[in-house]
């Protein structure tokens, strides 16, 4: 029991301590930036009247981070480093934009189609990473990284080429989509209840996948020990591809949300680097689905709220990124160090212990 407590307390302590230390180090009263970040993202006091637009933005930043994180849990559990997540978000956004630009239908159908298209776009791009890995033997880190950049190029090409804004070609984005193609949102805010529901459902689904389904258990087995999984009769390659497809689909929906729920158009940097941010989230959450909800919300708050720092304190808004990076790195090394100490202790007492594995 104490080890379980430690596995929660230790990272939390490290996170709080490193945040405070960092803020002291940049020479400010640590409370000021924290309050500003909260104020900038959800208002101060939180959720007071008139902060709907702010909160809406924060939630709509949380959506893609959380969706991508949920997907990444699946690939990480399968033992894969899906750095291609950025590309999967972008391809989802591109596919959703294509539907948003070309298909006219009643709004519910049109929204459904953009989301479905986004999922398929991300899924196919994820599948490509998986195929390169299982058939081509290309390490998923480098294959995924390569496909990230290819996706950025495709987006850029579309924005300044075939889908350029009427009249001018500029990297600032395509024309804004027709209203009927956009995600329905609350009045005076970007917040799309539909997307929030999808995100929560996705997180719950991933939790359920590994908590209660045979598919999830088999995926975990493939990730933990491929030869053993194979001997148990699990088609390991098919499961790896499955993991990439699930992750890609969720990332693609994240891309849809970015395109039709946040920017309302396709821009070259449509992913907002949220895929990479999600990798940090998942590393900090240590692959546990429900932890993704608060951690990615925290990261979204930092991302949105940090913009206040420029205006109100003489601090760069990029402090947010520093904070996120410091958190994850210190948690990683803190836990690594604890594990190292534990190993050392175990080695010291191994001789003479009866229950050790033979």
């Amino acid at each position, binding site marked *: 029991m104490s080890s379980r407590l430690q596995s929660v307390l230790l990272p939390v302590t490290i996170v709080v301590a490193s945040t405070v230390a960092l803020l002291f180090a940049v020479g400010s009263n640590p409370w000021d930036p924290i309050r500003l970040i909260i104020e900038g993202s959800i208002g101060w006091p939180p959720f007071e009247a008139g902060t709907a637009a702010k909160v809406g933005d924060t939630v709509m930043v949380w959506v893609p981070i959380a969706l991508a994180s949920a997907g990444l849990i699946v690939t990480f559990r399968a033992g894969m480093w899906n750095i291609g997540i950025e590309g999967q978000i972008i391809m989802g956004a591109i596919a959703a934009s294509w539907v948003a630009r070309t298909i006219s239908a009643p709004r519910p159908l049109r929204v459904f189609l953009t989301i479905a298209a986004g999922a398929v776009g991300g899924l196919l791009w994820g599948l490509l990473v998986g195929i390169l890995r299982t058939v081509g033997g290309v390490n998923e880190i480098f294959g995924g990284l390569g496909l990230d950049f290819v996706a950025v190029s495709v987006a850029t090409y579309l924005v300044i080429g075939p889908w350029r804004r009427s009249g001018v070609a500029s990297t600032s984005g395509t024309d804004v989509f027709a209203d009927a193609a956009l995600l329905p949102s609350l009045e005076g805010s970007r917040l799309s209840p539909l997307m929030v529901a999808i995100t929560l459902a996705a997180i719950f689904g991933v939790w359920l996948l590994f908590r*209660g389904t045979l598919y999830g*258990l088999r995926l975990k*087995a493939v990730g933990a020990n491929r030869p*053993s999984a194979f001997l148990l*009769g699990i088609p390991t390659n098919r499961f790896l591809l499955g993991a990439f497809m699930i992750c890609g689909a969720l990332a693609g929906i994240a891309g849809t949300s970015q395109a039709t729920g946040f920017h309302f158009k396709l821009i070259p940097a449509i992913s907002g680097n949220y895929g990479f941010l999600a990798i940090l989230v998942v590393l900090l959450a240590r692959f546990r689905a429900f932890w993704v909800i608060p951690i990615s919300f925290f990261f979204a708050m930092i991302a949105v709220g940090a913009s206040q720092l420029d205006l109100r304190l003489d601090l760069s808004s990029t402090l947010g990124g520093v904070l996120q990076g410091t958190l994850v790195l210190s948690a990683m090394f803190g836990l690594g160090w604890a594990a190292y100490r534990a190993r050392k202790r175990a080695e010291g007492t191994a001789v003479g212990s009866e229950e050790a594995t033979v």
Partner: protein
Amino acid sequence: MGLELREIHKHYGPVRANDGVSLTVEQGTLHGLLGENGAGKSTLMKVLSGFHSADSGEIMLDGKPIKLASPDDAIAAGIGMLHQDPLVFLPFSTIDNFVLGSPGGQRLDRKRAAVEFDELCERYGFNLDASTPARLLTVGERQQLEIVRLLWLGAKVLILDEPTTGISADQRSKLFTTLKALAKEGMSVIFVSHKLEEVADLCERVTVMTRGKVVGEVEMPVPPERLVRMMFGQVVEARARSAVDLGQPQLRLSGVRAASGLLSEDTVSIDIGAGEVIGLAGMEGSGQDTFLRMCCGMRAPKEGTVEVAGHNLTGKHYRDFLAAKMKYLPAGRLEEGLIKGLTITEHFVLAGGDKSFIIDWTAARDRAVRQVDHFTIKGTEASTAESLSGGNQQRLLLAMLPPQLSVLLMEHPTRGLDIESADWVWEQLLQRREEGTSIVFASADLDELLRYSDRILVFFSGRVIGELKTAQTTVDEVGLLIGGRRREASP
């Protein structure tokens, strides 16, 4: 140089790999170190070559104690080790392998090194080209490369760990000639092997190890039977066993041959009836592994057919073999069998027949608790695989087997287990046999082979060289065959 090891102790956790081993090797002799896998030979040689440091004990070279904290120390002391899988760098050229790790200035003078390399090769009759990439060399040539390298570094004691695995008969005889010549020149050679015949051919003295201890030392030549007895202890002759009516053949191999490597020279044919137990004897790496993998579809044979329970499954996928109720349990329990990090309950779910998408954890846990109890696994349903001891891992693996198997293939069913677990394992297997499962198992334990098999297939350097009916054979006959000597006349 005379070498003396005194009271070497080396423990890994509770495992006593070397338990007070003493060994003296006279200068200029070929000294054999004989023992089964896991007897502690490799550990002893790793201590001697500086890879591991001993927990206690002394090493004396020419009467002076030396300290071997790293391979560096061993090389400096003149002790060179040739590993079973020669530790060469495959993408590098032969000459780069030759000079890597040698002392000298920063400038790599490959030409000059090549001259010395060629001289050494010529002297020992090796036909190696300095510029060939090492990956194109055969295992035997890689060994030759390592030998000249170690000689060049000034080795005075040469340790060879199972050097004849994977090399041709030609290369073996050349190796032996070389070793004899080196011993004549004053080199002390330690030849580590589990192959009786080779040790008998080559060595002047032989030390036999079992279970981390030296059990005897003899001046050669002695009859091989004596060595067998030293290695395996007193073997109880096959006891009377309950006869089981053999049913229809469950596994039929007809003219099966591997595409390359072991078992690629001759074909193998055998019919294994329901309820029959077949033991695979032979020194490790003689082809048993290839045989088992061809039986279960993990390796497709180049020719011949494999039938399981009446279905021709030649060339079919492993999962089709599973569907025909065949199971394969390799030796590495945590590497190829169980999954680290998953609990016993999760293992049962993965292995279980219940394929419903949603797992009923309450039922699964109940089943796991029952199984843990029934198979007397020391652990709870929430224990992870790696937290179990070897015996309990084996219990878990057997507990995970589906009922009514047609064929069960196993490697070393009782290796590393205490006697109680080992007996329990066989109780389970024999019960399966009563139910009509054909059991094929590889083992390095002669006693186990003779006690439980109906028939024994003996493997020797990639071929099946004998098929014996257990009831009509003796331990000596099996021992001789394992060493590669065919029966003189069949009875």
